[in-house]
Protein backbone atom coordinates (compact mmCIF):
# COMPACT_ATOMS: atom_id res chain seq x y z
CA UNK A 1 0.00 0.00 0.00
CA UNK A 2 1.26 3.50 -0.75
CA UNK A 3 1.25 6.10 1.99
CA UNK A 4 1.48 9.85 1.77
CA UNK A 5 3.92 11.74 3.94
CA UNK A 6 1.39 12.03 6.73
CA UNK A 7 0.70 8.33 6.78
CA UNK A 8 -2.59 8.52 4.94
CA UNK A 9 -2.99 5.79 2.36
CA UNK A 10 -3.26 7.23 -1.12
CA UNK A 11 -6.55 5.63 -1.94
CA UNK A 12 -9.75 7.17 -3.12
CA UNK A 13 -11.50 6.83 0.19
CA UNK A 14 -8.84 8.81 2.03
CA UNK A 15 -9.64 11.95 0.15
CA UNK A 16 -13.35 11.66 0.74
CA UNK A 17 -13.32 11.01 4.50
CA UNK A 18 -10.24 12.97 5.54
CA UNK A 19 -9.71 11.11 8.82
CA UNK A 20 -6.80 13.24 10.00
CA UNK A 21 -9.04 16.26 10.42
CA UNK A 22 -12.21 15.21 12.19
CA UNK A 23 -15.21 17.49 12.24
CA UNK A 24 -14.61 20.31 14.66
CA UNK A 25 -17.49 19.66 16.97
CA UNK A 26 -18.26 16.00 17.18
CA UNK A 27 -21.08 15.43 19.64
CA UNK A 28 -20.29 13.27 22.64
CA UNK A 29 -22.89 10.73 21.58
CA UNK A 30 -21.32 10.41 18.18
CA UNK A 31 -17.91 9.87 19.78
CA UNK A 32 -19.30 7.25 22.12
CA UNK A 33 -21.01 5.51 19.22
CA UNK A 34 -17.76 5.54 17.24
CA UNK A 35 -15.96 3.93 20.13
CA UNK A 36 -18.56 1.27 20.86
CA UNK A 37 -16.19 -1.55 19.96
CA UNK A 38 -13.50 -0.20 22.24
CA UNK A 39 -16.06 -0.23 25.03
CA UNK A 40 -17.14 -3.75 24.19
CA UNK A 41 -13.52 -4.81 24.39
CA UNK A 42 -12.90 -3.18 27.76
CA UNK A 43 -16.14 -4.08 29.53
CA UNK A 44 -15.21 -7.69 30.42
CA UNK A 45 -12.03 -6.67 32.20
CA UNK A 46 -13.70 -3.67 33.82
CA UNK A 47 -16.35 -5.95 35.30
CA UNK A 48 -13.68 -8.43 36.30
CA UNK A 49 -11.65 -5.76 38.08
CA UNK A 50 -14.71 -4.40 39.85
CA UNK A 51 -15.65 -7.85 41.09
CA UNK A 52 -12.28 -9.38 41.93
CA UNK A 53 -10.24 -6.34 42.91
CA UNK A 54 -12.57 -3.65 44.22
CA UNK A 55 -15.52 -5.53 45.65
CA UNK A 56 -13.27 -7.47 48.11
CA UNK A 57 -12.19 -4.12 49.58
CA UNK A 58 -15.76 -3.85 50.86
CA UNK A 59 -14.90 -6.95 52.87
CA UNK A 60 -12.58 -4.82 54.96
CA UNK A 61 -15.64 -3.77 56.95
CA UNK A 62 -15.50 -7.23 58.56
CA UNK A 63 -12.30 -6.11 60.27
CA UNK A 64 -14.63 -4.15 62.56
CA UNK A 65 -17.06 -7.03 63.15
CA UNK A 66 -16.83 -10.18 65.22
CA UNK A 67 -17.19 -12.30 62.11
CA UNK A 68 -16.45 -16.01 62.37
CA UNK A 69 -18.01 -19.27 61.23
CA UNK A 70 -20.82 -19.06 63.80
CA UNK A 71 -21.85 -15.46 63.10
CA UNK A 72 -21.46 -15.44 59.33
CA UNK A 73 -24.95 -16.77 58.63
CA UNK A 74 -27.01 -14.48 60.81
CA UNK A 75 -24.75 -11.45 60.47
CA UNK A 76 -21.95 -10.31 62.73
CA UNK A 77 -21.99 -7.39 65.20
CA UNK A 78 -19.90 -4.28 64.92
CA UNK A 79 -17.23 -4.26 67.56
CA UNK A 80 -15.25 -1.16 66.65
CA UNK A 81 -11.53 -1.71 66.90
CA UNK A 82 -11.91 -4.88 68.96
CA UNK A 83 -10.17 -7.06 66.41
CA UNK A 84 -7.24 -4.69 66.19
CA UNK A 85 -6.94 -4.52 69.97
CA UNK A 86 -6.82 -8.30 70.09
CA UNK A 87 -4.31 -8.29 67.25
CA UNK A 88 -1.91 -5.86 68.87
CA UNK A 89 -1.92 -7.93 72.04
CA UNK A 90 -1.30 -11.17 70.17
CA UNK A 91 2.24 -12.47 70.46
CA UNK A 92 2.16 -14.33 67.14
CA UNK A 93 1.06 -11.28 65.20
CA UNK A 94 4.18 -9.40 66.26
CA UNK A 95 6.29 -12.49 65.63
CA UNK A 96 4.76 -12.56 62.17
CA UNK A 97 5.70 -8.95 61.53
CA UNK A 98 9.21 -9.52 62.84
CA UNK A 99 9.68 -12.59 60.65
CA UNK A 100 8.22 -10.89 57.58
CA UNK A 101 10.53 -7.91 57.90
CA UNK A 102 13.57 -10.03 58.75
CA UNK A 103 13.14 -12.31 55.76
CA UNK A 104 12.37 -9.38 53.44
CA UNK A 105 15.52 -7.57 54.47
CA UNK A 106 17.65 -10.71 54.14
CA UNK A 107 16.19 -11.37 50.69
CA UNK A 108 16.63 -7.77 49.65
CA UNK A 109 20.23 -7.35 50.80
CA UNK A 110 21.69 -10.71 49.84
CA UNK A 111 19.47 -11.18 46.79
CA UNK A 112 20.48 -7.83 45.35
CA UNK A 113 24.18 -8.30 46.11
CA UNK A 114 24.17 -11.78 44.58
CA UNK A 115 22.43 -10.71 41.39
CA UNK A 116 24.73 -7.71 40.91
CA UNK A 117 27.76 -9.93 41.46
CA UNK A 118 26.48 -12.47 38.94
CA UNK A 119 25.74 -9.72 36.42
CA UNK A 120 29.26 -8.30 36.78
CA UNK A 121 30.88 -11.71 36.39
CA UNK A 122 28.75 -12.52 33.35
CA UNK A 123 29.55 -9.13 31.88
CA UNK A 124 33.24 -10.01 32.01
CA UNK A 125 32.75 -13.27 30.09
CA UNK A 126 33.90 -12.89 26.48
CA UNK A 127 32.84 -16.30 25.19
CA UNK A 128 29.24 -15.87 24.04
CA UNK A 129 28.27 -19.53 24.11
CA UNK A 130 29.53 -19.92 27.67
CA UNK A 131 27.75 -16.75 28.75
CA UNK A 132 24.47 -17.92 27.25
CA UNK A 133 24.84 -21.35 28.83
CA UNK A 134 25.35 -19.85 32.27
CA UNK A 135 22.34 -17.61 31.76
CA UNK A 136 20.10 -20.43 30.58
CA UNK A 137 21.04 -22.56 33.57
CA UNK A 138 20.72 -19.86 36.20
CA UNK A 139 17.34 -18.62 34.93
CA UNK A 140 15.85 -22.11 35.10
CA UNK A 141 14.89 -22.31 38.81
CA UNK A 142 12.78 -19.16 38.43
CA UNK A 143 10.27 -21.21 36.47
CA UNK A 144 9.97 -24.06 38.92
CA UNK A 145 7.11 -23.83 41.39
CA UNK A 146 7.85 -23.19 45.05
CA UNK A 147 6.50 -26.64 45.89
CA UNK A 148 9.13 -28.22 43.68
CA UNK A 149 11.86 -25.96 45.01
CA UNK A 150 11.01 -26.66 48.64
CA UNK A 151 10.96 -30.38 47.89
CA UNK A 152 14.44 -30.15 46.40
CA UNK A 153 15.61 -28.04 49.33
CA UNK A 154 14.39 -30.73 51.66
CA UNK A 155 16.46 -33.31 49.80
CA UNK A 156 19.48 -31.05 50.11
CA UNK A 157 19.19 -30.07 53.76
CA UNK A 158 18.03 -33.25 55.53
CA UNK A 159 20.44 -34.48 58.20
CA UNK A 160 22.08 -37.03 55.90
CA UNK A 161 21.72 -34.87 52.78
CA UNK A 162 24.41 -33.49 50.48
CA UNK A 163 24.84 -30.19 52.34
CA UNK A 164 25.70 -31.89 55.61
CA UNK A 165 27.92 -34.40 53.84
CA UNK A 166 29.85 -31.62 52.15
CA UNK A 167 30.27 -29.63 55.35
CA UNK A 168 31.28 -32.76 57.28
CA UNK A 169 33.91 -33.77 54.75
CA UNK A 170 35.25 -30.22 54.69
CA UNK A 171 35.47 -30.45 58.49
CA UNK A 172 33.43 -27.27 58.90
CA UNK A 173 31.01 -29.08 61.19
CA UNK A 174 31.70 -32.21 63.19
CA UNK A 175 28.18 -33.61 63.38
CA UNK A 176 25.20 -33.27 61.01
CA UNK A 177 23.20 -30.09 61.48
CA UNK A 178 19.44 -30.32 61.59
CA UNK A 179 18.86 -27.43 59.18
CA UNK A 180 15.12 -27.84 58.75
CA UNK A 181 14.25 -28.26 62.41
CA UNK A 182 15.99 -25.39 64.14
CA UNK A 183 14.50 -21.92 64.15
CA UNK A 184 17.78 -20.07 64.13
CA UNK A 185 18.60 -21.35 60.62
CA UNK A 186 15.21 -20.73 59.08
CA UNK A 187 15.60 -17.14 57.88
CA UNK A 188 18.90 -17.86 56.19
CA UNK A 189 17.59 -21.08 54.71
CA UNK A 190 14.81 -19.05 53.12
CA UNK A 191 17.38 -16.50 51.96
CA UNK A 192 19.59 -19.16 50.38
CA UNK A 193 16.67 -20.87 48.65
CA UNK A 194 15.37 -17.57 47.33
CA UNK A 195 18.79 -16.63 46.00
CA UNK A 196 19.15 -20.05 44.38
CA UNK A 197 15.78 -19.62 42.72
CA UNK A 198 15.97 -15.99 41.62
CA UNK A 199 19.59 -14.88 41.33
CA UNK A 200 19.83 -15.52 37.60
CA UNK A 201 16.50 -13.99 36.84
CA UNK A 202 17.13 -10.87 38.91
CA UNK A 203 20.50 -10.38 37.23
CA UNK A 204 18.80 -9.91 33.81
CA UNK A 205 17.93 -6.30 34.49
CA UNK A 206 21.50 -5.49 35.57
CA UNK A 207 22.99 -7.33 32.60
CA UNK A 208 20.80 -5.40 30.18
CA UNK A 209 21.79 -2.14 31.90
CA UNK A 210 25.47 -3.08 31.61
CA UNK A 211 25.22 -3.83 27.90
CA UNK A 212 23.97 -0.27 27.40
CA UNK A 213 27.10 1.23 28.97
CA UNK A 214 29.14 3.02 26.32
CA UNK A 215 32.10 0.71 25.41
CA UNK A 216 34.34 3.72 24.82
CA UNK A 217 34.26 4.33 28.57
CA UNK A 218 35.97 0.99 29.09
CA UNK A 219 38.48 1.72 26.35
CA UNK A 220 39.27 5.12 27.81
CA UNK A 221 39.70 3.61 31.25
CA UNK A 222 41.97 0.90 29.86
CA UNK A 223 44.14 3.45 28.07
CA UNK A 224 44.40 5.38 31.31
CA UNK A 225 45.84 2.24 32.83
CA UNK A 226 42.84 0.96 34.76
CA UNK A 227 42.98 -2.77 35.38
CA UNK A 228 39.97 -5.04 35.19
CA UNK A 229 38.90 -4.43 38.76
CA UNK A 230 39.31 -0.70 38.45
CA UNK A 231 37.18 -0.74 35.31
CA UNK A 232 34.48 -2.66 37.16
CA UNK A 233 34.72 -0.27 40.08
CA UNK A 234 34.79 2.97 38.09
CA UNK A 235 32.78 2.17 34.95
CA UNK A 236 30.47 -0.79 35.49
CA UNK A 237 29.26 0.04 38.99
CA UNK A 238 28.52 3.73 38.27
CA UNK A 239 26.75 2.55 35.11
CA UNK A 240 24.23 0.44 37.04
CA UNK A 241 23.85 2.87 39.91
CA UNK A 242 20.54 4.37 38.80
CA UNK A 243 19.01 0.94 38.10
CA UNK A 244 20.20 -0.21 41.49
CA UNK A 245 18.69 2.77 43.31
CA UNK A 246 15.34 2.49 41.54
CA UNK A 247 15.08 -1.26 42.19
CA UNK A 248 16.17 -0.83 45.79
CA UNK A 249 13.51 1.76 46.45
CA UNK A 250 10.84 -0.32 44.73
CA UNK A 251 11.84 -3.32 46.83
CA UNK A 252 11.61 -1.29 50.00
CA UNK A 253 8.03 -0.64 48.96
CA UNK A 254 7.50 -4.40 49.03
CA UNK A 255 9.02 -5.04 52.46
CA UNK A 256 5.74 -6.40 53.79
CA UNK A 257 5.77 -9.06 51.06
CA UNK A 258 8.26 -11.64 52.26
CA UNK A 259 6.53 -14.27 50.21
CA UNK A 260 4.11 -16.74 51.61
CA UNK A 261 4.64 -20.03 49.86
CA UNK A 262 8.17 -20.77 51.01
CA UNK A 263 7.46 -20.11 54.69
CA UNK A 264 4.25 -22.07 54.57
CA UNK A 265 5.80 -25.04 52.78
CA UNK A 266 9.16 -25.14 54.53
CA UNK A 267 7.91 -24.25 58.00
CA UNK A 268 7.06 -26.84 60.64
CA UNK A 269 6.22 -26.95 64.33
CA UNK A 270 9.85 -26.79 65.48
CA UNK A 271 10.64 -23.58 63.64
CA UNK A 272 7.20 -22.01 63.91
CA UNK A 273 8.36 -18.92 65.83
CA UNK A 274 10.71 -18.04 62.98
CA UNK A 275 8.77 -19.24 59.95
CA UNK A 276 5.38 -17.73 60.53
CA UNK A 277 4.83 -14.53 58.52
CA UNK A 278 1.80 -12.23 58.49
CA UNK A 279 0.41 -14.09 55.49
CA UNK A 280 0.69 -17.41 57.27
CA UNK A 281 -0.91 -15.85 60.35
CA UNK A 282 -3.84 -14.63 58.22
CA UNK A 283 -4.23 -18.03 56.63
CA UNK A 284 -4.22 -19.87 59.94
CA UNK A 285 -6.66 -17.57 61.68
CA UNK A 286 -8.88 -16.96 58.67
CA UNK A 287 -9.13 -20.27 56.88
CA UNK A 288 -8.12 -22.86 59.44
CA UNK A 289 -9.77 -21.33 62.54
CA UNK A 290 -12.51 -19.43 60.68
CA UNK A 291 -11.88 -16.23 62.68
CA UNK A 292 -12.58 -14.09 59.63
CA UNK A 293 -12.82 -10.74 61.40
CA UNK A 294 -9.47 -11.04 63.15
CA UNK A 295 -7.73 -12.40 60.07
CA UNK A 296 -9.10 -9.59 57.89
CA UNK A 297 -7.91 -7.06 60.47
CA UNK A 298 -4.41 -8.53 60.24
CA UNK A 299 -4.51 -8.59 56.45
CA UNK A 300 -5.82 -5.04 56.34
CA UNK A 301 -3.03 -3.86 58.62
CA UNK A 302 -0.50 -5.45 56.31
CA UNK A 303 -2.10 -4.01 53.16
CA UNK A 304 -2.30 -0.49 54.56
CA UNK A 305 1.31 -0.51 55.78
CA UNK A 306 2.30 -1.96 52.42
CA UNK A 307 0.51 0.79 50.49
CA UNK A 308 2.10 3.49 52.65
CA UNK A 309 5.55 1.99 52.10
CA UNK A 310 4.91 1.69 48.38
CA UNK A 311 3.78 5.27 47.92
CA UNK A 312 6.60 6.54 50.09
CA UNK A 313 9.03 4.54 47.95
CA UNK A 314 7.50 5.84 44.72
CA UNK A 315 7.68 9.36 46.08
CA UNK A 316 11.35 9.00 46.98
CA UNK A 317 12.08 7.39 43.60
CA UNK A 318 10.45 10.30 41.76
CA UNK A 319 12.33 12.85 43.86
CA UNK A 320 15.64 11.13 43.18
CA UNK A 321 14.78 10.85 39.52
CA UNK A 322 14.34 14.60 39.31
CA UNK A 323 17.24 15.61 41.52
CA UNK A 324 20.14 13.27 41.17
CA UNK A 325 19.72 10.46 38.73
CA UNK A 326 19.14 12.24 35.46
Amino acid at each position, binding site marked *: *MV*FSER*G*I*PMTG*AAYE*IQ*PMQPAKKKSIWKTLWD*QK*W*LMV*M*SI*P*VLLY*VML*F*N*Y*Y*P*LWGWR*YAFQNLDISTIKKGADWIGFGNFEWLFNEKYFWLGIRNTLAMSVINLVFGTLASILLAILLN*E*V*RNRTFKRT*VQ*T*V*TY*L*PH*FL*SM*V*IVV*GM*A*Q*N*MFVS*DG*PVNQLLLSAKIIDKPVWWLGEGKYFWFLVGIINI*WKEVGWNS*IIYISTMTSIDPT*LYEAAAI*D*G*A*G*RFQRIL*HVTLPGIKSTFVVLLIMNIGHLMEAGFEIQY*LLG*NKQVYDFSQTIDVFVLEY*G*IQNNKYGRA*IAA*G*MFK*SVVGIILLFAANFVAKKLDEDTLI
Partner: protein
Amino acid sequence: MTAVTYNKKAKKPMQQDVVFPIVNGIFLCILMFVTLFPVINTVAISFNDGIDAVRGGIGLWPRKFSAEAYKTLLADKLTWNAFGISVARTVITTLTNLLFTSMLAFALSRKEYVFGKFITLAVVLTMYVNAGLIPNYLLIHRTLKLSKTFWVYIIPTMFSCFNMIVIRTYINGLPEALAESARIDGANDMRIFWQIIFPLCTPVLATVALFVAVGSWNQWFDTQLYCGSKKYLHTLQYLLKMKLATSMNTANAANASVDALASQAAAKSTPITIRCAITVVSALPILVVYPFLQRYFVTGMVLGGVKG
Protein backbone atom coordinates in the same frame (compact mmCIF):
# COMPACT_ATOMS: atom_id res chain seq x y z
CA MET B 1 36.04 9.94 33.80
CA THR B 2 37.60 11.86 36.62
CA ALA B 3 37.45 8.83 38.84
CA VAL B 4 39.97 6.91 36.78
CA THR B 5 43.44 8.20 37.45
CA TYR B 6 46.41 7.33 35.34
CA ASN B 7 48.15 4.44 36.96
CA LYS B 8 51.84 4.13 36.17
CA LYS B 9 52.12 0.94 38.09
CA ALA B 10 49.48 -0.87 36.05
CA LYS B 11 51.28 -4.12 36.56
CA LYS B 12 51.42 -6.76 33.93
CA PRO B 13 47.98 -6.43 32.33
CA MET B 14 48.59 -9.70 30.53
CA GLN B 15 48.84 -11.73 33.70
CA GLN B 16 45.70 -10.22 35.14
CA ASP B 17 43.83 -10.88 31.92
CA VAL B 18 44.71 -14.54 31.96
CA VAL B 19 44.01 -15.26 35.61
CA PHE B 20 40.71 -13.48 35.98
CA PRO B 21 38.80 -15.16 33.12
CA ILE B 22 39.88 -18.57 34.38
CA VAL B 23 38.84 -17.89 37.97
CA ASN B 24 35.63 -16.33 36.72
CA GLY B 25 34.92 -19.29 34.45
CA ILE B 26 35.53 -21.78 37.26
CA PHE B 27 33.30 -19.82 39.59
CA LEU B 28 30.46 -19.69 37.05
CA CYS B 29 30.84 -23.42 36.41
CA ILE B 30 30.50 -24.05 40.15
CA LEU B 31 27.43 -21.83 40.15
CA MET B 32 25.90 -23.86 37.32
CA PHE B 33 26.68 -27.03 39.22
CA VAL B 34 25.05 -25.69 42.38
CA THR B 35 22.00 -24.66 40.35
CA LEU B 36 21.63 -27.99 38.62
CA PHE B 37 22.64 -30.30 41.44
CA PRO B 38 19.31 -30.29 43.35
CA VAL B 39 17.43 -30.89 40.08
CA ILE B 40 19.61 -33.82 38.99
CA ASN B 41 19.67 -35.16 42.54
CA THR B 42 15.87 -35.24 42.62
CA VAL B 43 15.78 -37.12 39.31
CA ALA B 44 18.39 -39.56 40.65
CA ILE B 45 16.42 -40.22 43.85
CA SER B 46 13.21 -40.73 41.88
CA PHE B 47 14.90 -43.51 39.89
CA ASN B 48 16.45 -45.12 42.94
CA ASP B 49 15.20 -48.12 44.83
CA GLY B 50 12.81 -46.92 47.53
CA ILE B 51 14.26 -48.48 50.67
CA ASP B 52 17.78 -47.79 49.54
CA ALA B 53 16.89 -44.12 49.00
CA VAL B 54 15.84 -43.77 52.63
CA ARG B 55 19.46 -44.32 53.61
CA GLY B 56 20.24 -41.02 51.89
CA GLY B 57 23.53 -40.05 50.32
CA ILE B 58 22.44 -40.25 46.71
CA GLY B 59 24.30 -37.82 44.48
CA LEU B 60 23.98 -37.35 40.75
CA TRP B 61 23.21 -40.93 39.83
CA PRO B 62 20.82 -43.52 41.33
CA ARG B 63 22.66 -45.99 43.55
CA LYS B 64 20.28 -48.86 43.00
CA PHE B 65 18.26 -48.25 39.87
CA SER B 66 14.51 -48.84 40.00
CA ALA B 67 11.56 -47.31 38.17
CA GLU B 68 9.21 -48.59 40.85
CA ALA B 69 8.23 -45.09 42.03
CA TYR B 70 7.06 -44.17 38.53
CA LYS B 71 5.21 -47.44 38.18
CA THR B 72 3.36 -46.83 41.44
CA LEU B 73 2.67 -43.26 40.43
CA LEU B 74 1.44 -43.98 36.94
CA ALA B 75 -0.71 -46.89 38.12
CA ASP B 76 -2.67 -44.44 40.24
CA LYS B 77 -5.69 -43.03 38.44
CA LEU B 78 -5.49 -39.85 40.51
CA THR B 79 -2.10 -38.99 39.02
CA TRP B 80 -3.50 -39.09 35.51
CA ASN B 81 -6.52 -37.15 36.61
CA ALA B 82 -4.36 -34.50 38.26
CA PHE B 83 -2.26 -34.29 35.13
CA GLY B 84 -5.41 -33.75 33.07
CA ILE B 85 -6.67 -31.04 35.43
CA SER B 86 -3.28 -29.30 35.36
CA VAL B 87 -3.20 -29.34 31.58
CA ALA B 88 -6.81 -28.20 31.26
CA ARG B 89 -6.47 -25.31 33.68
CA THR B 90 -3.23 -24.18 32.07
CA VAL B 91 -4.60 -24.23 28.53
CA ILE B 92 -7.94 -22.60 29.33
CA THR B 93 -6.45 -19.96 31.64
CA THR B 94 -3.83 -19.05 29.07
CA LEU B 95 -6.40 -18.66 26.29
CA THR B 96 -8.95 -16.65 28.28
CA ASN B 97 -6.34 -14.50 29.98
CA LEU B 98 -4.66 -13.73 26.68
CA LEU B 99 -7.96 -12.88 25.03
CA PHE B 100 -9.21 -10.45 27.67
CA THR B 101 -5.83 -8.95 28.48
CA SER B 102 -4.94 -8.24 24.86
CA MET B 103 -8.41 -6.85 24.06
CA LEU B 104 -8.09 -4.34 26.87
CA ALA B 105 -4.51 -3.56 25.90
CA PHE B 106 -5.70 -2.71 22.41
CA ALA B 107 -8.55 -0.52 23.63
CA LEU B 108 -6.25 1.36 26.00
CA SER B 109 -3.62 1.83 23.31
CA ARG B 110 -6.05 4.07 21.41
CA LYS B 111 -5.41 7.63 22.44
CA GLU B 112 -8.84 8.87 21.37
CA TYR B 113 -10.68 6.41 23.64
CA VAL B 114 -12.86 8.51 25.97
CA PHE B 115 -12.73 6.16 28.95
CA GLY B 116 -9.09 5.24 28.41
CA LYS B 117 -7.70 7.31 31.27
CA PHE B 118 -10.34 6.18 33.75
CA ILE B 119 -9.98 2.50 32.91
CA THR B 120 -6.19 2.69 32.98
CA LEU B 121 -6.31 4.22 36.43
CA ALA B 122 -8.84 1.67 37.70
CA VAL B 123 -6.78 -1.22 36.37
CA VAL B 124 -3.32 0.00 37.37
CA LEU B 125 -4.48 0.75 40.91
CA THR B 126 -5.21 -2.94 41.35
CA MET B 127 -1.47 -3.56 41.22
CA TYR B 128 -1.12 -1.55 44.42
CA VAL B 129 -4.34 -2.17 46.32
CA ASN B 130 -5.07 -5.72 47.33
CA ALA B 131 -7.87 -6.60 49.72
CA GLY B 132 -5.98 -9.63 50.97
CA LEU B 133 -6.56 -13.33 51.27
CA ILE B 134 -9.71 -13.54 53.38
CA PRO B 135 -11.94 -11.03 51.54
CA ASN B 136 -11.04 -12.75 48.27
CA TYR B 137 -11.71 -16.12 49.82
CA LEU B 138 -15.11 -15.00 51.11
CA LEU B 139 -15.98 -13.62 47.67
CA ILE B 140 -15.03 -16.75 45.77
CA HIS B 141 -16.15 -19.27 48.35
CA ARG B 142 -19.32 -17.73 49.79
CA THR B 143 -20.57 -15.08 47.38
CA LEU B 144 -19.75 -16.66 44.03
CA LYS B 145 -19.78 -20.26 45.29
CA LEU B 146 -16.98 -21.24 42.95
CA SER B 147 -15.43 -23.63 45.46
CA LYS B 148 -15.27 -27.25 44.43
CA THR B 149 -15.75 -26.41 40.77
CA PHE B 150 -13.21 -26.41 38.00
CA TRP B 151 -14.05 -22.76 37.24
CA VAL B 152 -12.28 -21.56 40.36
CA TYR B 153 -9.06 -22.20 38.43
CA ILE B 154 -10.17 -20.14 35.45
CA ILE B 155 -12.38 -17.23 36.44
CA PRO B 156 -10.27 -15.49 39.09
CA THR B 157 -7.22 -15.48 36.79
CA MET B 158 -8.76 -14.10 33.64
CA PHE B 159 -6.77 -10.88 33.61
CA SER B 160 -3.33 -9.63 34.52
CA CYS B 161 -2.53 -5.94 34.71
CA PHE B 162 1.20 -6.29 34.32
CA ASN B 163 0.78 -8.31 31.12
CA MET B 164 -1.72 -5.76 29.84
CA ILE B 165 0.92 -3.03 30.19
CA VAL B 166 3.49 -5.19 28.39
CA ILE B 167 1.12 -5.82 25.46
CA ARG B 168 0.00 -2.19 25.32
CA THR B 169 3.61 -1.01 25.18
CA TYR B 170 4.15 -3.33 22.25
CA ILE B 171 1.02 -2.14 20.42
CA ASN B 172 2.04 1.48 20.93
CA GLY B 173 5.28 0.65 19.15
CA LEU B 174 3.47 -0.55 16.02
CA PRO B 175 3.07 1.97 13.18
CA GLU B 176 -0.10 4.00 13.60
CA ALA B 177 -0.74 3.96 9.87
CA LEU B 178 -1.69 0.30 9.88
CA ALA B 179 -4.82 0.78 11.97
CA GLU B 180 -5.50 4.13 10.33
CA SER B 181 -5.57 2.73 6.83
CA ALA B 182 -7.85 -0.11 7.84
CA ARG B 183 -10.23 2.35 9.46
CA ILE B 184 -10.38 4.36 6.28
CA ASP B 185 -11.17 1.22 4.39
CA GLY B 186 -14.19 0.88 6.66
CA ALA B 187 -13.03 -1.67 9.23
CA ASN B 188 -14.40 -1.22 12.75
CA ASP B 189 -12.19 -1.45 15.84
CA MET B 190 -13.05 -5.09 16.44
CA ARG B 191 -11.88 -6.05 12.98
CA ILE B 192 -8.78 -3.88 13.25
CA PHE B 193 -7.92 -5.67 16.44
CA TRP B 194 -8.51 -9.19 15.20
CA GLN B 195 -7.21 -8.90 11.68
CA ILE B 196 -4.38 -6.41 11.98
CA ILE B 197 -3.14 -5.83 15.52
CA PHE B 198 -3.60 -9.31 17.00
CA PRO B 199 -1.53 -11.09 14.32
CA LEU B 200 1.21 -8.46 14.58
CA CYS B 201 1.42 -8.99 18.32
CA THR B 202 2.43 -12.65 18.04
CA PRO B 203 5.89 -12.19 19.64
CA VAL B 204 4.63 -10.37 22.71
CA LEU B 205 1.59 -12.63 22.98
CA ALA B 206 3.86 -15.67 22.94
CA THR B 207 5.87 -14.20 25.79
CA VAL B 208 2.82 -13.32 27.83
CA ALA B 209 1.23 -16.68 27.13
CA LEU B 210 4.32 -18.42 28.48
CA PHE B 211 4.22 -16.42 31.68
CA VAL B 212 0.53 -17.07 32.21
CA ALA B 213 0.95 -20.75 31.41
CA VAL B 214 3.86 -21.22 33.80
CA GLY B 215 2.03 -19.34 36.53
CA SER B 216 -1.07 -21.44 36.11
CA TRP B 217 0.82 -24.72 35.90
CA ASN B 218 2.79 -23.91 39.05
CA GLN B 219 -0.22 -22.86 41.11
CA TRP B 220 -1.15 -25.05 44.06
CA PHE B 221 -2.60 -22.73 46.65
CA ASP B 222 -6.00 -22.24 45.00
CA THR B 223 -6.46 -26.01 44.94
CA GLN B 224 -5.75 -26.15 48.66
CA LEU B 225 -8.12 -23.27 49.44
CA TYR B 226 -11.06 -24.18 47.29
CA CYS B 227 -10.79 -27.77 46.10
CA GLY B 228 -8.87 -29.57 48.84
CA SER B 229 -11.74 -31.95 49.50
CA LYS B 230 -12.39 -32.73 45.84
CA LYS B 231 -9.93 -35.41 44.81
CA TYR B 232 -10.89 -35.17 41.17
CA LEU B 233 -10.02 -31.46 41.01
CA HIS B 234 -6.50 -31.84 42.43
CA THR B 235 -3.63 -30.67 40.27
CA LEU B 236 -0.16 -32.18 40.01
CA GLN B 237 1.35 -29.37 42.05
CA TYR B 238 -1.16 -30.00 44.81
CA LEU B 239 -0.43 -33.74 44.85
CA LEU B 240 3.20 -32.82 45.31
CA LYS B 241 2.34 -30.32 48.03
CA MET B 242 0.47 -32.99 49.98
CA LYS B 243 3.38 -35.42 49.69
CA LEU B 244 5.74 -32.66 50.78
CA ALA B 245 3.65 -31.89 53.86
CA THR B 246 3.64 -35.56 54.91
CA SER B 247 7.36 -35.97 54.42
CA MET B 248 8.01 -32.73 56.32
CA ASN B 249 6.02 -34.08 59.23
CA THR B 250 7.50 -37.55 59.28
CA ALA B 251 11.03 -36.25 58.87
CA ASN B 252 10.62 -33.98 61.85
CA ALA B 253 8.36 -36.10 64.02
CA ALA B 254 10.76 -39.01 63.91
CA ASN B 255 13.64 -36.70 64.71
CA ALA B 256 14.84 -37.39 61.21
CA SER B 257 15.86 -40.85 62.29
CA VAL B 258 16.64 -43.00 59.33
CA ASP B 259 15.65 -46.21 61.04
CA ALA B 260 12.17 -44.97 61.82
CA LEU B 261 11.62 -44.03 58.21
CA ALA B 262 13.07 -47.28 56.95
CA SER B 263 10.80 -49.33 59.15
CA GLN B 264 7.77 -47.57 57.71
CA ALA B 265 8.87 -48.41 54.24
CA ALA B 266 7.73 -51.90 53.52
CA ALA B 267 6.86 -51.25 49.90
CA LYS B 268 9.38 -51.04 47.11
CA SER B 269 8.66 -47.38 46.56
CA THR B 270 8.85 -45.14 49.61
CA PRO B 271 7.37 -41.69 50.20
CA ILE B 272 10.73 -40.16 49.32
CA THR B 273 11.02 -41.74 45.89
CA ILE B 274 7.34 -41.14 45.14
CA ARG B 275 7.67 -37.49 46.10
CA CYS B 276 10.71 -37.10 43.87
CA ALA B 277 8.91 -38.85 41.03
CA ILE B 278 5.96 -36.43 41.28
CA THR B 279 8.43 -33.56 41.39
CA VAL B 280 9.97 -34.77 38.15
CA VAL B 281 6.60 -35.31 36.48
CA SER B 282 5.30 -31.89 37.49
CA ALA B 283 8.50 -30.11 36.50
CA LEU B 284 8.93 -32.03 33.26
CA PRO B 285 6.79 -29.84 30.97
CA ILE B 286 8.72 -26.76 32.07
CA LEU B 287 12.11 -28.45 31.86
CA VAL B 288 11.29 -29.70 28.36
CA VAL B 289 10.04 -26.46 26.80
CA TYR B 290 12.26 -24.08 28.77
CA PRO B 291 15.53 -24.26 26.81
CA PHE B 292 13.72 -23.60 23.53
CA LEU B 293 11.57 -20.76 24.76
CA GLN B 294 14.04 -19.10 27.10
CA ARG B 295 14.59 -16.11 24.84
CA TYR B 296 10.85 -15.34 24.86
CA PHE B 297 10.87 -15.33 28.64
CA VAL B 298 13.77 -12.91 28.72
CA THR B 299 12.19 -10.65 26.08
CA GLY B 300 9.15 -10.37 28.30
CA MET B 301 11.26 -9.53 31.32
CA VAL B 302 13.02 -6.77 29.42
CA LEU B 303 9.79 -5.47 27.87
CA GLY B 304 8.15 -5.35 31.27
CA GLY B 305 11.19 -3.77 32.85
CA VAL B 306 11.11 -0.89 30.40
CA LYS B 307 7.61 0.17 31.29
CA GLY B 308 6.76 -1.72 34.45
